[in-house]
């Protein structure tokens, strides 16, 4: 009884602290996804520094993990991590790239880029995998990398979170407890890890909005019904 109450108190305090303090790129951003395997931290899309004909897509989920929790962290096979690509300029996805973890094989399977059978809030896996890779173990000295038949390179596994932000001070500022940042600031994401999916995709597979030579990209996590 006493122990239970203590736990409840500890939980309440934790919730208060995390609810109040944790703002980051999207780390534990909202009540509905905080602590869930669907919680996105960041999306990055950039021209490959190795091959300018490729774009690199990075999806990070499950943020702010300590080394200890990273050692046992897994992708969730009930989730799809989905890059949405608009290449016509109407903010509706024309193509998706879906990453789906399979526990039995401990592999990440990649589907697409492919036109989705339906746009919006629900998805199905589209067609057959275009690439697959074994998830890199936490203790692995080198990342496990694979390349699919269409030329997509893929990595999946734990990585250092590349995001940095003095979010503690930011929250003091917006709650009226401080009026400015400190110099130097304190990186609240330092020493923490994420689960990461990295794809290097030939530009020829994603198309382009003709007038602007751009695409619009957003990242979704979706959970099996």
């Amino acid at each position, binding site marked *: 009884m006493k122990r239970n109450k203590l736990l409840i108190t500890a939980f309440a305090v934790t919730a208060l602290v995390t609810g109040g303090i944790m703002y980051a*790129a999207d780390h534990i951003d909202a009540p509905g*996804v905080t602590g869930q395997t669907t*919680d996105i931290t960041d999306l990055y899309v950039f021209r490959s520094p190795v091959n300018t004909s490729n774009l690199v897509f990075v999806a990070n989920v499950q943020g702010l993990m300590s080394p200890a929790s990273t050692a046992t962290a897994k992708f969730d096979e009930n989730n*799809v991590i989905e890059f949405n690509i608009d290449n016509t300029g109407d903010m509706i996805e024309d193509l998706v790239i879906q990453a789906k973890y399979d526990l039995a094989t401990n592999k990440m399977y990649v589907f697409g880029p492919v036109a989705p059978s339906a746009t919006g809030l629900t998805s199905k*896996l*589209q067609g057959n995998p275009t690439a697959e890779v074994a998830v890199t173990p936490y203790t692995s000295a080198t990342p496990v990398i694979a390349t699919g038949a269409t030329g997509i390179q893929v990595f999946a596994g734990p990585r250092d979170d590349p995001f940095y*932000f003095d979010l503690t001070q930011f929250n003091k500022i917006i709650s009226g407890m401080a009026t400015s940042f400190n110099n130097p600031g304190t990186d609240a994401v330092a020493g923490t890890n994420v689960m990461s999916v990295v794809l290097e995709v030939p530009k020829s597979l994603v198309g382009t909005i003709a007038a602007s030579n751009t695409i619009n990209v957003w990242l979704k*996590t979706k959970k099996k019904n």
Partner: protein
Amino acid sequence: MKKSIIILAFAVTGSIIVSSCKKDNTPPAPVGCASCSSTNTYTQKDLLARPSVGIVFNSNGADKDAFNVSIPSTAAATFQSKFMARLLALNPGYTTNILGQTATQYTTLLANDVLNVSTNGITAFYNGTQLLTGRTLAEDVIDVELILTFGGPTGALNPGLTSDHVNANDKPLPSTFPYMAAPF
């Protein structure tokens, strides 16, 4: 004999359907991935494009949850006015930013939350020249957003609020795929 013809016909028909009409007859689980059935439906739980938009510019948990299950083509209609109220709460003195955007223009950009990515040039969230042509791993996106939110038309206003003075990741980033550093 008759039976075997029927079986043969069925086998031929079956193989034709599979090869010519793959979309409607995709095997339930692709080879190698037993959990990858194409019949399962997955429903959206989280959404992100530009960094920090959903969490900073939604002022409460209910709006954050709603933003995470929105879609970009319709989100602006719901969220632009809320983002504008939030912007003016964060910075009551907001006039324009270094891009010359009024509060309405800035929050309209934010509420149309997609990451614009150049397919023929340098990609950067903002590098002094390229603006919103992608997002690289190393970029100080927080300072960019702080300057746009607090820095006024020249970027010089509110100097205590336009940088968090954390200017790089805590580990060097590799120059080769997957470009991310090994975990701590």
